[in-house]
């Protein structure tokens, strides 16, 4: 068995041991994951971002304009000092302004306008009718300025049934997802580590 496979097997079993009860092996594996993740992120950021976007651009290609975002990025650290903390507002304001300006129209178009037009199907098909009833009753359920009783209450209750179908489907997919992860780990143990499955 390769060293990497052996380490992965031991760590998998250490994590699985939590299912029996909390124990030092599980905690060791958990802390190891946290530590390795931080170290890995740091290396990736340095290698894949700082080197090509800062060092390569400024010092090798001589693109001096790249100093501007570097200075803005460094200003974020001004928050660590009470005296200079106000300087960090500049990059923050830029980020918030950029974020809002970019995301609001994009979200409106992709998540609302396109989705609305996709729900407006011809009522000649059963799917079109179901979608129409589902959309209206579900939206009405989230309208809280009118008491949900009588005929209106029946419509909003129908909305909750549509929501429950969605929750059920999501739960089913979640179960599928979690079982898939277990399959992946068990397949690793049985095939790659122990070798009893070809």
């Amino acid at each position, binding site marked *: 068995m390769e060293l990497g496979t052996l380490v992965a097997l031991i760590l998998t079993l250490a994590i699985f041991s939590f299912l029996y009860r909390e124990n030092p092996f599980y905690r060791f594996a958990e802390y190891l994951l946290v530590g390795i993740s931080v170290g*890995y992120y740091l290396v990736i950021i340095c290698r*894949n*971002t700082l080197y090509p976007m800062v060092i390569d651009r400024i010092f090798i290609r001589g693109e001096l304009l790249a100093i501007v975002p570097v200075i803005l990025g460094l200003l974020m650290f001004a928050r660590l000092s009470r005296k200079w903390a106000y300087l960090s507002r500049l990059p923050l304001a830029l980020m918030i302004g950029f974020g809002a300006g970019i995301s609001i129209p*994009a979200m409106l178009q992709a*998540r609302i306008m396109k989705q609305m037009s996709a729900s407006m199907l011809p009522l000649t098909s059963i799917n079109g009718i179901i979608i129409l009833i589902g959309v209206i009753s579900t939206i009405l359920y989230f309208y809280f300025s009118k008491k949900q009783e009588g005929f209106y209450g029946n419509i909003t209750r129908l909305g909750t049934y549509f929501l429950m179908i969605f929750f059920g489907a*999501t739960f089913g997919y979640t179960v599928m997802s979690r079982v898939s992860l277990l*399959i*992946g780990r068990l*397949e690793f143990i049985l095939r790659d580590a122990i070798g009893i*499955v070809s």
Partner: protein
Amino acid sequence: MDLTRLDKRWIYLLLLLAVGIPLLVKVKLPVRLTAETEKVFEAVETVDSTGFVMISFDIEASSLPEVRPIAEALLKHLFRRDQRVIGLALFPEGTAIGYDLISSIANEYGKKYGEDFIYLGFRPQYVSAILQMGEDIRSVYPLDYLNNDWTMTGPFSGVRNYDDIELVISVADGSLPTYWVEYAGARHGQRIATGLTAVMATSYYPYTESGQLVGLIGGLKGAAEYEQLLGYVGGGQRGMLAQSSGHILIIALVLLVNLVAVRRRR
């Protein structure tokens, strides 16, 4: 026996057996194809033979057992069709995973780095990265993952922005496909497909219905479907028996507990 007082470790053991035993049995279950997976397959099939396809590994290591079969099936399909592939990652954890996956499948098909595929690596701020690639990919990735200047020579040097890319595929375990739809799809008109974990699939069916995604491969079942379309048995199809028996156990437990609850109320 009072089921409400049952030690939950018995359930863990049952699930371990229900999933583990089928993995020892070599039985291939028939897989019913869904329209969403077929649409992804067709989208790849319709890419021009000289066209470029971008595949983004927007994943973390914890979801690898589920997304690996999806990524492998997609890459096999792309390399089988001699498509030129540009790999990248918008999550740090997906960076090395993506490189390993793309390199190993490329190696299987005798593809060469720089000629048939390149890997651009990771960039932070995925919104900015996706948006900026619509203008100029070189400004986002002046160097590739191996710190080579990919913009100077080779077939990939002509790729400037989404206009030169026929299809973007986001292999994801989170909400990254939404950002691809919003910033590459809605803004730049880029065709986008996704392969993602099952837990995320329900959130993305509306996007396939609206045409914002050309299709989606959902979880291990989706991977099994794609493998069937490609005609090979991979991690998806191998896991289907275990997946089904795990589901049957959970359905049985849910029914049993509900029956006990109804009886106790009476």
